[in-house]
């Protein structure tokens, strides 16, 4: 892997310190923005960098450069910063198995074609759409990255990872006496086969934009609700996942800090974080501390079973890392982050969920949510919804939001669908560091949510 430096020498230098690790990244990125069928922007970028973190007497120092050839200076600066700390946290790292490994994900359809060919594929996608007259603007944004990441540390770890990551996003805006938009996003560790995954989803978004012009506002009040797989996934990530990040536990800022082993939801609730989902948008081989990405059970049948850890939080809580130390690029200090987070499948069909609902709401996808892990208060907004009456999905609703304490929602989960669809692609922005995450899941029936 060509980073233009003597890796053996770097490894020997890292070994001189109590603990030191280097993350190197080289990436090539292509972006295409199509506006109403025309190629508005094409952009190529080539990025490279090295981040070195050292731990000396319980104090971290971290330094980064966009030129890996400067690694000696980067290491020196990291050491200097660690030593200059007058009030260190006395941080420690959990003991973990040391790996020398290569993790490679190859695209099924190579990304090594010119950007104009990629633009052509995006244009074909656009041309395949039937666009109603009320839909006035369609933007399709395609981005792919080919990344090569290298990890080395004092303990002898030497891990190389090569993978593609692609995402394609459509926004459709409709207009009558007001303006409204609908979206769809598909992503994963794919090559150009991502275009085969669209499968009618973009057409659905275009139709949704038009239909939203006639949608009624969602009612306010308490109703039973069915969360579709994407909405359930975003809820699992935003409301539950962040409160299960062990840095929040260690800092005493999660409502779950003293609930390990206790019941926090109904028996139907099992929530997983899994970095090993094949080609998941949030999947990876190893985290930024050289620990393998893995499947971590957070909640099992309603009982809080575990948290997501870095080596630092694992050491503080006397456990092992779950391989969740991730960073928004090698220029950033790793934090505890999720990978692909979702409800595990249950025993019911969607029809069985619908049949008991006299009046309720079907929550369709999500435009986002947020949670205060300290109090458990969350806020969730769907792209839209549908009114359910006498077990049947009826008219479309817009401005569908619900909020409350996520523990109440977990206790109110009564049925979970037997099909599991993990395929959502999003970006999580904890502490200003953006990392790719996946979500999805089964449909989830909640007997009562507070809408509006």
């Amino acid at each position, binding site marked *: 892997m060509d980073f233009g430096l003597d890796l053996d020498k770097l490894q020997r230098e890292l070994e001189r310190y109590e603990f030191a690790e280097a993350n190197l990244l080289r990436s090539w990125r292509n972006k295409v923005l199509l506006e109403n069928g025309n190629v508005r922007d094409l952009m190529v970028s*080539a990025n490279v960098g090295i981040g070195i973190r050292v731990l000396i007497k319980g104090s971290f120092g971290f330094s980064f450069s966009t030129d890996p050839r400067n690694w000696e200076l980067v290491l020196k600066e990291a050491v200097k*910063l660690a030593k200059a700390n007058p009030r*260190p946290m006395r941080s420690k790292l959990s003991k973990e198995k040391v790996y020398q490994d290569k993790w490679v994900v190859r695209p099924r359809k190579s990304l090594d074609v010119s950007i104009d060919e990629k633009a052509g594929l995006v244009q074909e996608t656009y041309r395949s759409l039937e666009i109603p007259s009320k839909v*006035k603007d369609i933007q399709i944004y395609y981005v792919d990255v080919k990344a090569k990441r290298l990890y080395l540390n004092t303990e002898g770890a030497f891990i190389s990872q090569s993978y593609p990551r692609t995402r394609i996003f459509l926004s459709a805006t409709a207009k009558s006496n007001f303006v409204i938009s609908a979206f769809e996003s598909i992503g994963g560790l794919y090559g150009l086969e991502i275009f085969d995954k669209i499968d009618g989803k973009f057409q659905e978004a275009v139709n949704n934009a038009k239909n939203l012009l006639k949608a009624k506002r969602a009612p306010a009040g308490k109703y039973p609700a069915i969360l579709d797989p994407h909405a359930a996934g975003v809820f699992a990530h935003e409301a539950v996942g962040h409160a299960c990040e062990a840095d929040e536990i260690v800092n005493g800022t999660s409502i779950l800090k003293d609930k390990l082993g206790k019941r926090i939801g109904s028996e139907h609730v099992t929530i997983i974080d899994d970095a090993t989902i094949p080609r998941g948008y949030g999947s990876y081989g190893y985290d930024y501390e050289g620990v393998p990405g893995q499947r971590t059970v957070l909640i099992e049948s309603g009982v809080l079973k575990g948290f997501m850890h870095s080596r630092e939080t694992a050491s503080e809580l006397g456990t092992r890392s779950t391989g969740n130390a991730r960073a928004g690029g090698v220029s950033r200090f790793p934090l505890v982050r999720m990978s692909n987070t979702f409800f595990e499948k249950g025993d019911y069909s969607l029809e069985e969920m619908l049949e008991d609902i006299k009046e309720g709401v079907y929550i369709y996808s999500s435009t986002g949510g947020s949670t205060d892990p300290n109090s458990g208060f969350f806020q*969730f*907004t769907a792209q839209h919804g549908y009114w359910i009456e006498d077990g049947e999905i009826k008219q479309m609703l817009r401005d569908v939001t619900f909020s409350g304490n996520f523990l109440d929602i977990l206790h109110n989960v009564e049925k979970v669908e037997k099909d599991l669809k993990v395929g959502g692609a999003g970006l999580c922005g904890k502490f200003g560091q953006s990392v790719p995450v996946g979500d999805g899941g089964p449909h989830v029936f909640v007997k009562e949510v507070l809408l509006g």
Partner: protein
Amino acid sequence: MSLESMLRRAERFGEAEIFFMKGRTIEARYNRDMIEAGLEKIFQGYGLRLNVKGRVSMVSFDLEKEFDRALKSAVKMTKYTEPVKGYHFPEKKDYQKVKTWSKQVSELEFADLVNIVLEGIDGIKETGAEPMQGEVSVSETHTYIENSNGVNFSDKENGISLGFGAKRGTGSGFDFWESGVLDFAPRELGKNAGREAVENSKAKKMGWDGKIALHPDIIDEFLSVILDWIDGDEVRRKTSPWTGKLGKKVLGELTIVEDPWIPYFPGSTSSDDEGVPTKKKVLLDKGVLKTFIYDTITATKVRAESTGNGFRHGGSKISIDVTNIVVDFPDRESMDGWDNCIVLRSLMGYHTINEKTGDFTLTVDHGILINGEKRIPVKGCVFVGNLFDVLSQVELASKEDYRWGDLITPYLLTRGRLVT
């Protein structure tokens, strides 16, 4: 290879532009009452744009040795992008001198940042709250823009950013400051965060239909949605709710000015990232929409002039954005007289605001009901409304102005509804 050499080589294929930025940041990160890490970043990056008969391409890269490959890609891409008739990169113009760099900030080292952090932490502890995670960072960047039409701009800027988070039980508080000079008091910022956490720990849900005062943090978040509606590209595509509303009253009596020339302010700059001089401009005058904002490409598409609002974020393409924003309102009075109202300090879920209709449902993270002498903390209820309505119904503004990042604004008193 110098930037000029790069420019000359690129010019063989059409109009060219080279953007180069290099910089350094240092950061002291704390966790609880200890310093978790010292961090440093040294970075640089190039942006190359080519314009061949209105077909524009862009490549970004970190290392000089990538230039040849970047140029090859840029040349090829110009064959496939949609042409913008009559488009040219900007021509050389005079720039307003703006103070964006100070010696005192440039001299700050890690040890100074640690002292600032420890002072802030002491401030938090004095209130009985505990410090959470946060950081103090200082950054310096040097920017260079050269193009085939004579633009040859360079500038340097630096600044410091402080964030203090505090908790007490299930309550939390936060305060922050960004500046190009050392005009802050870390202990006071820490105290503000601490006091807020203590107050917030006693907060309860409450329904409300009446007067609501908005903290600058909330105004900042609301304006980030509203200001997209004056983005010339959104207007061109007719996806802005303010399309066709130039000269019309759209937002009550609010006046919103973009001022890129405030000395040492976070958003201050004399040029945008295309080399177009920035301008001070009135966006809304007593609620009347006065202008849309443009980069050069959008301006050409709609036969307007760039307003100096073309900016790059990281290695991304040029997009339309604002610099510093100043909010004003005709009627002002001291907040001491504001009674029987809820002062909203922070809300959750801003990214869920409907960016087209302005409808929102946001959970109250921290608010205070002012009732005579009583201050009753509020949280967990839901603020339901519409941005147009909430900002159009502003009745009063506080006498004092407040800074929040690159925003200067008074508190705004409006009407709103909280539901439990």
